[in-house]
């Protein structure tokens, strides 16, 4: 063999694979029939095989079960409606979304340049109204959201009686109760949808105010780190941290009353609570524990988008375990509260120093824009508790209640099995159930669904063996859509990095967003799901696909965080800044490249992660 030239010819414009080029994992054939027809590429014209799509594994890191697409549909639809129909944000419509091989891909929809100018006055009128009436509208928002949750909480799903009560005969009600099952199911979906509409009522505005300030800062301080801008508007004491703070208070109270021994086995929830109640001072502790639950235990270790997400309220071994860990840390003399004063002082310093660099005119603009962003931005962080945690917590609990009605009617074996039906199929199954019940014959479901659910489970499991592509098709030369950049950390550089990762000779270095400053070295702990959080040890460096805010207690334990997905305003970034931990987010490959036990160096100033051994 003769020596070949070692220099490759200049590569053409690099691309991600087309959807049609991806291999279907073995056993997942026919997966596209599991999802609503409008959510898959297969039923489109084919143009989508050319468009640039990125994967939103920040919100949907795991494969959708058919019922779970509802969260994606509500969330992304409602995000779009405010850009496109409510606020007429001049350059940006919504985000188109599809499910491919079980994962959600997104493609931002721009506004044709010639239409942008015409939208400006409408936008100013509409956004202006919100910004001018922010506090009163937000107060109203809380009332609306709370009312939705209360109504949802009041819905009940129970098995139908063998016979209609005699009273209904007497009153001439002339209905058998099956209509309640149907009405409540439809109402549950509507109420969930309603709070998702509210979710985005303020969210886009919060981001807009932030982006306005962001753009101004980038103009007057060219190259200013994104982190600096985030610090200047971020709230320091937020409702999002309240559940975690409640646990810390409970830990302190337990130490005050000398209740430490009662926490020996927190996996035994009833036993633990009984031991506490029986101890001196235990009654006061239990009273505070119960008070904290409403609403703060409507908190999930997941992100609210999956039916399997565990909520503290139903899994009290989780908060009790965190309290136990806080008690241990208190015993070791650690400070468990967040350094709030220090964070406020640092925020003030950053604001003052940048402000001092400006002349009088620029300073006035800086103050106005920062003021608006600082007013609007806390919503971006706080809404999460009301919707993703509280609303979705109640929603999934009700879904499980309905699932149990089917279990009792012999449709399937486990209440979670209902998640293998689409939202439309659940409605059909209710028709089937009530019909069978009414006529006194077998419903079809018990003969059809068990095997079908097993078949679908096999497909979902097969899809879950593959990770999603970070993106599909040829990226634009430059990514400019601000929401995409800020929310998802999808920047031109990041996309190029992803493309480079796929090539041979890649040096194994991991880069992402410098989301929270500081440099530390430590042992990596790779966590793929919330169920693994118990493995995290004091001083570990957490490496995860994404993190959820409810992982809060873990952040008091770890030294740094690395995530695959997420931008400057992702949950991991916000929480790490709050806890003063270095974070590198949106690495794309951190959790697949790093292995648990490896020594790594996380540089939250530059966004680099190095594997040291």
């Amino acid at each position, binding site marked *: 063999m003769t020596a070949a030239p070692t220099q490759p010819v200049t590569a053409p414009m690099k691309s991600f694979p087309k959807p049609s080029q991806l291999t279907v994992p073995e056993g997942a054939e026919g997966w596209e029939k599991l999802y609503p027809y409008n959510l898959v590429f297969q039923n489109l014209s084919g143009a989508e095989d050319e468009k640039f799509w990125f994967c939103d594994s920040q919100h949907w890191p795991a494969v959708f079960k058919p019922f779970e697409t509802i969260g994606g549909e509500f969330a992304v639809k409602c995000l779009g409606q405010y850009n496109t129909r409510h606020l007429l944000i001049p350059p940006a419509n919504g985000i188109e979304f599809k499910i491919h091989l079980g994962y959600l891909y997104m493609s931002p929809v721009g506004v044709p340049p010639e239409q942008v100018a015409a939208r400006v006055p409408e936008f100013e009128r509409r956004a202006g109204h919100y910004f001018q009436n922010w506090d009163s509208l937000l107060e109203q928002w809380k009332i609306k959201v709370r009312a939705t949750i209360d109504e949802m909480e009041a819905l009940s799903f129970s098995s139908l009686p063998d016979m209609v009560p005699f009273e209904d005969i007497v009153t001439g009600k002339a209905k058998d109760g099956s209509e309640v099952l149907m009405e409540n199911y439809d109402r549950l979906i509507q109420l969930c949808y309603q709070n998702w509409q509210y979710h985005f009522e303020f969210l886009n505005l919060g981001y807009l105010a932030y982006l306005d300030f962001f753009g101004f800062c980038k103009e*007057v*301080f*060219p*190259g*200013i*780190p994104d*982190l*600096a801008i985030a610090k200047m508007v971020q709230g320091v004491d937020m409702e999002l941290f309240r559940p975690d703070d409640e646990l810390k208070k409970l830990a302190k109270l337990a130490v005050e009353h000398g209740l430490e021994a009662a926490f020996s086995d927190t996996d035994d929830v009833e036993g633990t609570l009984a031991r506490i109640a029986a101890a001196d001072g235990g009654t006061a502790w239990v009273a505070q524990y119960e008070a904290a639950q409403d609403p703060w235990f409507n908190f999930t270790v997941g992100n609210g988008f999956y039916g399997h997400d565990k909520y503290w309220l139903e899994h009290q071994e989780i908060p009790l375990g965190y309290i136990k860990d806080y008690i241990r840390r208190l015993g070791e003399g650690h400070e468990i509260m967040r350094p709030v004063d220090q964070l406020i002082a640092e925020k003030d310093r*950053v604001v003052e*120093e*940048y402000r001092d*660099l*400006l*002349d009088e005119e*620029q300073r006035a603009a800086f103050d106005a824009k920062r003021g608006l962003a600082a007013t609007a931005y806390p919503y971006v962080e706080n809404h999460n508790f009301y919707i993703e945690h509280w609303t979705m917590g109640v929603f999934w609990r009700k879904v499980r209640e309905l699932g149990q009605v089917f279990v009792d009617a012999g449709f399937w074996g486990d209440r979670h099995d209902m998640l293998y039906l689409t939202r439309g199929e659940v409605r059909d199954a209710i028709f089937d159930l009530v019909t069978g019940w009414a006529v006194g014959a077998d419903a079809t479901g018990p003969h059809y669904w068990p095997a079908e659910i097993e078949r679908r489970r096999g497909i979902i499991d097969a899809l879950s063996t593959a990770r999603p592509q970070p993106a599909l098709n040829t990226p634009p030369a430059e990514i400019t859509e601000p929401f995409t950049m800020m929310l998802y950390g999808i920047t031109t550089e990041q996309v190029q990095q992803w493309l480079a990762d796929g090539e041979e000779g890649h040096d194994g270095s991991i880069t992402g967003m*410098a989301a929270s*400053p500081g*440099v530390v070295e430590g042992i990596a702990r790779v966590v793929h799901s919330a169920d693994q959080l118990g493995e995290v040890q004091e001083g570990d460096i957490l490496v995860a696909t994404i993190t959820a805010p409810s992982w809060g207690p873990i952040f008091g334990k770890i030294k740094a965080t690395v995530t695959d997905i997420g931008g400057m305003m992702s949950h991991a970034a916000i929480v790490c800044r709050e806890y003063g931990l270095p974070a590198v987010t949106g690495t794309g490959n951190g959790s697949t490249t790093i292995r648990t036990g490896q020594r790594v160096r996380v*540089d939250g*100033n*530059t966004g680099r992660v190095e594997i040291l051994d």
Partner: protein
Amino acid sequence: MTTDAPYVRFFDEGGDPTVELLGGKCASLVSMTGAGMPVPPGFAITTAAYDAFVDATGIRDEISHKLATLDADHVSSVDAASATIRDHLTSRPMPEPVRAAIVAAYQSLQDRFSSPVPVAVRSSATAEDLPGASFAGQQDTYLWVTGLDSVLHHVRECWASLYTSRAIIYRLRNDIPDLGLSMAVAVQKMVNSSVSGVAITMNPTTGDRSKITIDASYGVGEMVVSGQVTPDNILLDKVMLSIVSETIGDKHAELVPDATAGDLVEVPVDPERRTRRCLTDDEVVAVATMAKRAEKHYGCPQDIEWAYDSDLPPGEGLLLLQSRPETVHSAPAATTTPSTPSTLGPATGLLSGITASLTNRNPS
């Protein structure tokens, strides 16, 4: 001058940077050290030491007598008076308390290092007595001084510089009385730079004041300043002190001090060191922090020279050699009028070229 004033004062021992006691140069060094901008370590021999010397030896009276009738236009008699006075100042024995104080301070400075280090000896005038800052600042600087005897000798040379013919004529012509005339002297370690360079508290290419630019290379900074090496260039955000961009320079050679020759020699930099950044992340932040302090201290954008001295303990090696207002690239936002804090008096202007020369070649 009060009689209980100290004869020596270390730059890092704190206290007011009094020009009357320390002279402009030493007052500035004390002030900078106190403001978190450490200068090469050393001490001032105060004006009190000079006063004690001229009083105890009777030189003060002799000077008054000689100058009383002197005509500024009669050059040869001025020269003769100058020669006599300077001979007295460099030859009469020092009072024991003054000598003992200088010896102890010099020993104490040397005790900070594992082996003897060369020093610079330079005059620190109370500026109004002399014709312009540069006159004093540049004429009386003795670099690479080693050993106690040589130090004592050069201290007297500095004292004697008060009575050069030019200084005598200047004072006569401007009616500056000799009464109360005094001189302090700085004794300062010569810098042994492992890495050095400059830093500007703005982006000099755009005038953006929210940035700090650092140029850094190995060895003594002269090659960076004169453009003989391509340094590492680092742009930082001034508020967050995070790196915005960086370009690694080739840094093919470095100047290193050769203490025995009392000079600098140019040596090649090995390939591994050439291609990596010569400062660690922490060092980059430390340099930027010091530049930021200088800007705050002087109230306007600064152009500093800095060095890491490898004789100093880890964490204390960063030294400020020079800080001067950045005037070449004025930013649109830089509307602040440069102001000099009052305690520093003439120091800002003087600073230029003072400590920087601590790394320089011995003037031949």
